[in-house]
């Protein structure tokens, strides 16, 4: 159930949403399309689903050219950001929809819906209407509905975007576990790099309708291929033409030769580490991440002038 996207381009009027995009997704994998809004990630997902047609290029699902195949014949499960729940149908009827339009026997439908209700932990809610569910429950229902016809591919468009932070984290874990159980090839779209890193085994970073880099979370963080990936995946500081991660910077109270001088603006303590915001003499902002012990050792306070030393930095060829 692999997916291959070959040289896909799509324009909306004058706006180039996708420009020659190629992506390979292995069967059974969990892939994130990561990018800022307007990067083309949702358009790519909708083209894979058949909800949009590409101007150029092709989509190959399980070795077969699916470019001209209609949405309803593509056998993909799609989960929308705002759930797209069938408002006038109960949870059971929502989940059963894909089986009913396929005219499956009643007993089989009942069995499958029961199984899915268990899987998404909504056994007690089968006879409710979507309006009577919380956001997280609605999205789980939408997932069960998408999985009901046994799709070859599961596509999720910002599935947790409309949920609050706690529910989002819960559903993230849950999606990962679900994927381990169901093993359907899954692609989800997100603009949240933490979400992509947390859930996906492969991340496709997109920007301005192009693929910037494809890799696993560690690769993207440790070996970003471009300035864009450097700053979009994880936090990054710019020191002239060099880029440094916040935890790859150290501070010294007496600026040593070669160090960049900067004034401390703000110190924020999170559990284990502290984040220090600084402003350099030329006005650019820096973020430094140190452990709490290091912070206490250095006895730093806002307003102080310190030296900033890069422990590990990288440069990118101009583009």
């Amino acid at each position, binding site marked *: 159930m692999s997916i291959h996207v070959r040289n896909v381009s799509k324009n909306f009027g004058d706006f180039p949403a996708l420009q020659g995009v190629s992506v390979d997704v292995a069967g059974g994998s969990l892939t994130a399309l990561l990018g800022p809004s307007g990067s083309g990630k949702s358009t790519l997902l909708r083209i894979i689903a058949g909800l949009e047609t590409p101007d150029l290029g092709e989509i190959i699902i399980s070795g077969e050219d699916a470019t001209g195949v209609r949405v*309803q014949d593509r056998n993909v499960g*799609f989960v929308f950001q705002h759930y797209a729940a069938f408002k006038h149908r109960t949870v059971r009827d929502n989940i059963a929809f894909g089986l009913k339009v396929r005219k499956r026997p009643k007993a089989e439908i009942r069995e499958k819906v029961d199984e899915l209700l268990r899987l998404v932990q909504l056994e007690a809610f089968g006879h409710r209407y979507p309006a009577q569910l919380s956001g997280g429950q609605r999205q789980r229902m939408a997932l069960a509905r998408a999985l009901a016809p046994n799709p070859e591919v599961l596509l999720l468009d910002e599935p947790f975007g409309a949920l609050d932070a706690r529910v989002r984290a819960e559903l993230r874990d849950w999606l990962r576990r679900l994927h381990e159980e169901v093993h359907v090839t899954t692609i989800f779209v997100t603009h949240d790099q933490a979400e992509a890193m947390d859930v996906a085994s492969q991340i496709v970073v997109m920007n301005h309708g192009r693929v910037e880099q494809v890799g696993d979370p560690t690769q993207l963080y440790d070996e970003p291929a471009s300035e864009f990936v450097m700053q979009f995946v994880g936090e990054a500081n710019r020191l002239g033409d060099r880029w440094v991660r916040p935890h790859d910077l150290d501070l010294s109270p007496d600026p040593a030769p070669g160090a960049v001088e900067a004034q401390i603006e703000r110190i924020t303590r999170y559990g284990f580490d502290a984040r220090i915001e600084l402003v350099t003499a030329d006005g650019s902002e820096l973020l430094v991440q140190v452990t709490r012990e290091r912070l206490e050792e250095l006895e730093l306070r806002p307003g102080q002038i310190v030296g900033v030393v890069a422990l590990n930095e990288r440069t990118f060829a101009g583009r």
Partner: protein
Amino acid sequence: MRRYALRFVALAYLAAILIAPLGVVFYRTFQDGFAAAWEALSTPETIHAFKLTLIITAIAVPLNTVFGIICAIAIVRRRFPGKGLLNAFIDLPLALSPVVVGLSLFLLYGRTGWFGGFFERHDIQVLFALPAMVIATIFVSLPFVAREVVPTLREIGDEQEQAARTLGASGWQTFRRITLPSIRWAVIYGVILTTARCLGEYGAVAVISGRIQGQTETATLRVEERYDSFDLAGAYAIAIVLALIAIAVLLLMTLVKPREGTA
């Protein structure tokens, strides 16, 4: 205090404009007793007039319902050249005087009109007969279903329809199982308004029907004919039945309206 003032204005306006004329008609109808009204209603011409009105309505309403739903979907869901024009043209019957509609039908279907020759050669009587009356009524009652359905379609958006498609539903299955249930109250409301408009149509039909008693005279035309013949009791009685049908239709609408939260 302001609350009551507002209610008073609303109710007084309704009373003056709607209730008073209706009340007078009621009063006049039954002034000479129920029997007189019944007698006026049971003449063959009057019965025929009601039948004709109902036949025209029964043809025009289903046609405009189907057409209205198709138009609304085209306007909201599709992109095509001339869409703005279609959107504007749907409202034309509301802007155009029915008399103008009647005259334009004359020009189209008259002996020297664009289509008139064709129908005459095939020996089909359009003007001064049922076909022209049906066409005129369809024209004047055209916008209601589309106008009710368009905002509802916009409001529900197309995500549910897209979801249905990804789940394997064909275009027709998506319409029947997802779109139609979502817009059904708008459709019903539109059908009721269309029905009311068809029952009450006067102007266009007056022009193209020829008003032949017992043949091309609808209930509204009959009211005027009775009035002109100084049969006030008869005119009032027919008017009251028309009013009662309209009220029944409106009540039906209130009854079928969805309870909050279940739609």
